[in-house]
């Protein structure tokens, strides 16, 4: 089902396929933690083609590959390679494909992972293309929620903060809606979820600009960073910035089992005190990138 397959867009994965990925990821947990050794991918080579920097994503792929006994080649700074001399992506991909068994690509232009998948004979995994897709981030977000609640259907998930530019929340909203969650969108007027994303959701989400409107209902508070640069007027930014801050006091109103997630890095959207509450899951979420990516690598390489 997965062997040889490209992972380009979250929209190409069915619920059953996501369940398989989560199941394999769960089995990977002790290996990801270093409690058990594995040589599942012994002799396999992962090529990481990072045309723009994203250290965390790259390192979590590298960690995943190493934990399974495989090795990694690649670059994280295209200016040091022939790409800066004007080589096409198609050519770079064909060469790197011949050096490796699986490719992970991060690229500033939209659709580049799809193009890479066309030119590579080995599987290609999209690690973010422009404002487009970033399916492994979405999968690790879903895995974290799945781990907590077992089922995603029927959960109330609030997406909070910059919903306009935040790529992670776009594919996440799509996937959550596909899996039957109820979605609440919480953002300042200026940073609302684009209408073409909302159009793709199964049910019309609840939209508000106040966290207070959703705090009592939400099972998941998925917080994203609001960047100052997005605001034409700095005083406008000051007005909204504070209102999207998750504090332990605010969480007193939340459900007992509610969890707080964040794709990280955070700045001041989540007060440090929250780290010590039973609600914090963002570090768990970041760690989950490793077992989820291990599962994907093992699946597309056909060893599980």
């Amino acid at each position, binding site marked *: 089902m997965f062997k040889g397959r490209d992972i380009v*867009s979250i929209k190409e994965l069915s619920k059953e396929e996501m369940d398989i990925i989560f199941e394999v990821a769960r089995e990977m947990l002790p290996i990801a933690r270093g409690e058990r050794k594995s040589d599942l991918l012994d002799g396999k080579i992962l090529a990481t083609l990072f045309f723009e920097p994203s250290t965390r994503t790259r390192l979590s792929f590298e960690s995943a590959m190493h934990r399974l006994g495989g090795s990694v080649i690649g670059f994280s700074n295209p200016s040091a390679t022939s790409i800066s001399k004007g080589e*096409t992506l*198609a050519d770079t991909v064909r060469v790197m494909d011949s050096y490796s068994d699986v490719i992970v690509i991060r*690229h500033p*232009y*939209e*659709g580049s992972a799809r193009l890479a998948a*066309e030119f590579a004979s080995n599987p290609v995994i999209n690690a973010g293309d*422009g404002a*487009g897709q970033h399916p492994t981030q979405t999968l690790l977000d879903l895995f974290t929620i799945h781990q907590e609640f077992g089922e995603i259907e029927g959960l109330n998930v609030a997406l909070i903060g910059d919903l306009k530019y935040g790529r992670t929340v776009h594919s996440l909203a799509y996937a959550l809606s596909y899996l039957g969650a109820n979605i609440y969108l919480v953002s300042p007027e200026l940073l609302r979820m684009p209408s073409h994303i909302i159009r793709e959701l199964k049910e019309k989400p609840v939209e508000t600009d106040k966290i207070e409107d959703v705090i009592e209902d939400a099972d998941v508070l998925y917080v994203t960073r609001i960047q100052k640069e997005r605001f034409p007027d700095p005083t406008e930014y000051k007005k909204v910035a504070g209102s999207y801050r998750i504090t332990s006091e605010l969480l007193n109103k939340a459900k007992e089992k509610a969890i707080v997630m964040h794709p990280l890095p955070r700045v001041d959207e989540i007060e440090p005190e929250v780290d010590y509450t039973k609600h914090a899951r963002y570090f768990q979420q970041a760690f989950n990138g490793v077992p989820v990516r291990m599962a994907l690598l093992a699946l597309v390489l056909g060893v599980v």
Partner: protein
Amino acid sequence: MEEQTLKVQKIRNGIVIDHIPCGMALKVLKILNINGDIGSTVSLVMHVKSRMGCKDVVKIEDRFLDEREIDKIALIAPTATVNVIENYKVVNKHKVELPDEIVGIVKCMNPRCITNQREPVVSEFKVISKNPVILKCKYCEREMGVEDIIENIL
């Protein structure tokens, strides 16, 4: 009845593009690259009242269309019919039909799409709606409506 609805004289050889959605005739000419110095007679009737409502008609003498041009017309005028005229007679009449995939005749409107960079690929779109026409880029997944399509026809 034909005489009455077309309102312009018959042509000897060439094509009549009929049932163009109202107001789209100029755009049809634009995508066929027909401008001032074509050298043959072009007649155009806009806002013809018909039983179905309203339509535009374009007649072009001594000009024929290839597959690619017919697909282009289908994109912006999905209801159109193309009549081929020889010696004042219709020798071939067919409805344009939009294929399920559009390859190489429209460029993606997204400037940050990889197909708009220097890569060895042709643009490719899935037709996700035929009326109104909506195309979705196979690469960046951006959707384009009729106005965007007209702007980006190759």
